[in-house]
Structure formats: C-alpha cells, structure tokens
C-alpha cells in the first residue's frame, strides 16, 4: 500500500443543540453527529463515502476540509491538521458539490478560471497546461466564452469540476457529482474522474446516492450511519454482507384503475398506491418478459424501471444484520 493521505483516528463531533422548551426556558441537547470514526485513505485511492441523510457524511467532510473542528480524535490530511491550517489545506484540496456552483454566474466560464488562478496562486505555465487538459477531456472548448448562466446543468457541472482541479489538488471531495445529469453527461463525468485518478493519482472521496457512480468509480466503499463507520471494504462485499442477498430493481406500473396486487411470475408487489404498483425483481433479470407479462394480463397505462440505489443496498445490509 502507498502513502497515507487521509487519516482519522477516533474522530468525534458533538453539537450542542438549543431548543426552545416553553416561553423562556431552553433545552440543551447533545447530538453526536460523528461518533468515533477511524479510517485511512492512501494517496491515489478513490473511495465512496455513503450513508443515509443525516448519517454524518457531510460533518466528516467539513472536518476533513477544516471548516469544522472535531470534538475529539486525531485527523490529518496530507499531514496537515485541517482545522488549524484551513487556508493552507485549501490550496491542496478541491471541492465539488453537484447542486452548488463556484462559478461566476454572469461572466464567461473562462473568467472564473482566471479567478481560480489568482486564488490558488497557480503559476502561469501550470495553469495553462491544466486548463488545456481539462478543456480537452471535459469537452469545454466551446463553452469557455459562454456566460455560466447559459450553460446546461451537465455543462456547468463539467465546468465546476475543471475549476476544482486547476490547482492540482492532492485530494478531491465530490458531493453528488452526477445528480440531475442525463446519461451522457454522467458517463462523461465518470470517465473523466477515472482518467484523472489513473493518470495524476488524485485521491478522490466521493459522496453519492447513485449506486452506479460507486460501481463505476470506486473499489472501496465506506458506509456511515448514526455517526459510525458500518462498513469499509470493496463494493462487492457490501452486497454480500446484506443477508437479503442480491439487489433488486423496481418496475413501477400505472394501471387504468385500482387493482389488487398483480400476480406476475418473477416479481413481487412491494407497494400499492391507488392505480400505481411497485414490483421488485432481481437486478440481473431482464425487465422485458416482466413488462410483457404485465401488459398481457392487465390494463397498463405507463411504466418505468428504477435502478437500485444506495439507500436500498444499505437498508438491505441493515436488514441482513438485524
């Protein structure tokens, strides 16, 4: 194994929440958002960091980036204590939030990049080389002169990723980098991240609800819930650790009228809501015969297939343990 880049040991974060209890009286309550987490990430690893909302993911990321100070434990990123030297660390990390942008809304994309050059004090030659690489790989050539407000979501996302990489960060934190993107844009973003990791060895910590992001990018997954690390290992092991076994896809059907749960071979109804029903079937099985069977036997108006998501895999994992 290589050099350790991120190191957490017994890290805790306790928030004191004040709540109004009556007219004047206020109740104090302690919330353990992160409850003794320890792991290390080597330089060049690409790790998925997943868990339900409120599990402590974003609190961990905030401690790793230095905007929150841990209540206890030891934390180092590239040898730096983030909370003590936030600004110094900021020069060595990149952050991308799928739903937020760091780009300058009314100005052409390239103006935001010029600002990044100043902010991160990137030497001219390196800036040019990095920009050229990002422009080529992320297909930004024709977008540089376009004001950011006119970009599509996928274009803007690519623009944001480039902005986070111009200063050659050691570590890149990605929060839902493919959220809301169409299939083609998702593929482009994932291909770029794979290449970035392979060629430059940039360490990536990825938070997502999209199982495919993890499947296609990360060999290692960490699952956090209630502030604790529940699983740390290969994605395959995550599937296996859930006793319920394989993951399932869901066929959502809209019928002409309310009906009792459908009876179709190879699937079972997991939910009924008015004229809409949810049928679960094994993820590897083809949806085609199932669709044919439903269409043949019932008055079908519309249907869609949903891929298994992270939440579901995790839920199954807990179900397996419980």
């Amino acid at each position, binding site marked *: 194994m290589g050099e350790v880049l991120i190191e957490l040991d017994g890290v805790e974060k306790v928030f004191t929440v004040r709540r109004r209890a009556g007219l004047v009286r206020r109740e104090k309550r302690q919330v353990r958002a992160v409850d003794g987490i320890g792991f290390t990430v080597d330089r060049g690893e690409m790790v998925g960091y997943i868990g339900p909302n409120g599990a402590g993911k974003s609190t961990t990321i905030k401690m790793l980036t230095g*905007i929150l100070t841990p209540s206890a434990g030891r934390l180092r990123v590239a040898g730096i204590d983030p909370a003590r030297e936030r600004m110094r660390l*900021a020069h060595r990390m990149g*952050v991308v939030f799928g739903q*937020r942008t760091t780009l300058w809304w009314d100005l052409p994309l390239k*103006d935001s990049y010029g*600002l990044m050059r*100043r*902010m991160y*004090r990137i030497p001219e030659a390196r800036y040019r080389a990095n920009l050229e690489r990002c422009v080529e790989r992320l297909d930004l050539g024709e977008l540089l002169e376009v*004001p950011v407000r006119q970009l599509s979501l996928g274009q803007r996302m690519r623009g944001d990723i480039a902005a986070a990489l111009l200063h050659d960060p050691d570590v890149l934190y990605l929060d839902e980098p493919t959220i809301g993107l169409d299939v083609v844009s998702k593929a482009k973003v994932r291909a770029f991240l794979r290449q970035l990791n392979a060629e430059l060895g940039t360490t990536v910590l990825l938070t997502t609800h999209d199982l495919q992001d993890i499947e296609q990018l990360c060999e290692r997954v960490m699952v956090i819930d209630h502030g604790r690390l529940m699983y740390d290992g290969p994605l395959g092991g995550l599937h296996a650790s859930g006793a319920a076994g394989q993951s399932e896809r869901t066929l959502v059907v809209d019928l002409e009228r309310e009906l009792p749960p459908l009876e179709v071979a190879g699937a079972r109804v997991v939910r009924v809501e008015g004229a809409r029903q949810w049928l679960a079937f094994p993820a590897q099985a083809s949806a085609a015969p199932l669709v044919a069977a439903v269409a043949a036997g019932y008055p079908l108006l519309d249907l869609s297939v949903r891929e298994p998501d992270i939440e579901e895999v995790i839920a199954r994992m807990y179900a397996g343990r419980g």
Partner: protein
Amino acid sequence: MSRQLSPDAEADAEAEAGKGSGGVRRRAVVRDAVHRSQLYGAVAVGGFRRYATYGAATAAGVFTNTVFGFILAYTYVALWDERPGLGGYSQGQALAFIWVSQSLLAAAALMGGGFQEEFQERVRTGDIAVDLYRPADLQLWWLAADLGRAAFQLLGRGLVPVLAGALAFPLELPVDPLRWLLFLAAVVLALVVSFAVRYLLGLAAFWLMDGTGINMMAGLVSVFFSGMLLPLTVFPGGFGDVVRMLPWAAMLQVPMDVLLGEGAGAGGAVRAFAFQAGWALALLGAGRLMQAAATRKVVVQGG
C-alpha cells in the same frame, strides 16, 4: 504532467529558511500581499464586468435617475425659492446636490441593488457553503466585487444624469480639481461604509432566510438618512445633530459636504474622512463578528 512544488510549499520553505533572516521573510510577506491584491483586484474587475454586460439595465437606470433628478430638482427650486439659504446651501448648490447625489445613488446602492440580494440568494440556496472552502476571505471577496460594481455604476449610471442636470439647471459646482479629488476619496469611503452596512443585511439572511422585507426597510432608511431625499444639513436641532452622526450620513451627505459645503477645506476633509473611516472600520468589524456567527451556523446545520 509533472507534479511541481506548489507555490505554498515554496512559501513555506522560504518562511522556514527565513526564520533567521528578516529579508527573506519580508520578501515572502510582500509577495503574499501582492498575490492578495491581485486576487481581490481580479474580483473587483469581475464585479465591474458583470454589470457591464447588462446594457439595457444600465440604460433603464440612467433614465430613472435622470427623471428622478428632474422631479427632485423642481421640488428643490420651489423649496429654495421659499427659503433661500436653507441648510446653508444656495439654490445652485442645492441643485448641484441633487444631480451629484443622483449619480451616486446606484453606486452606493442607496435604494438597494448592490451585492446583497445576490449574497442573500446564495445563503438561501446554500451555495454560500462552497465559498467557505476557498482560500479567500468572504468579506474581502464581496467588498472587492461590490466596489467593482460600484465603479461601473459610477461611470455607467453617474455621468449622464449629472450632464443632463447641468444642461437643464444652473448648478453651482466647484472648479478646483483638488476639491474634486478629495470628493472622489470621500466617495470611495462612502462606498465602503455602504458595503459594510449591506454586508450586515446580507448576513441577516442566515437567520431570516428571506431578505426582501429587511432590504425594503433598509432602502427606505438609507434614502432618508443618507440625505438623498433632503440634505441632512436642512434638519434643525437635536434631530439634525443625530442624523448627521449616523453611518448613512457617511454614504452621501459627507461626500457632498466635501464637495460643496462645510467639509470643503483641507481640515474639513480630514474630519470628514475620519468620520467615514471610523464608521467603515466599526461596521466592517461588526460584519466580521456576525460572519463568524453565521458561518458557525451554516457549518453546523449542513448544506
């Protein structure tokens, strides 16, 4: 691509080596200051260019300021005909007050329209969280951006109304170039004070979530207390003394004093600058305290 030594590492190494020698350390400090001013300079240029892209809005603004100027000018003519020398101004000076203040209206964002709506929107949507991960100071960043905006609006929206006013009315404006230079310095300080007040309003969005109400109230307050509606020198007694000491006075009345009235001499200008700088420092300081509380809040709540 080869991974080079980051500029930071260089600076670190230099600082390390410079522990014994003051010269090297001083050089590192100077270079740091240069980098900083380049960054915030670039932010200001960006602020200028952003507003420059909206030509139609600028034209509409110029038109509004000019019409507003005419309405106020005729009101003032009537008022000063009735009460010559009101507030220590001759009629020509009162008219100059109106037209010059129309040119400062947008720049100092006296009726809103500066950076704070955008800032509040970033707070509301949570985009502000991204800004916290940058190696830059939030307050300085927005100050630079707002000064860039103000510079554009001073030129883009300020010049035409003054020219229109000068063509239609006999304005009594000073001809001494030094006086105009002092006035410009007072305007820069006015813009900083205006920013500092609006930064507090912007930060209020962390608690209010919606800034519309507070912005409207702030607009009303600043139009009156800056002297935009009537010069503050007009108000008599204790009330007049109080309004002339408030921060809004630093945004318009004080620069106008430097240009036209009692702050005109060198000594008066120094007093005026001290008044403005005092408010600027106090309000920027308050902004920093409030910013610390606000970031703690946003960081804890998520986003």
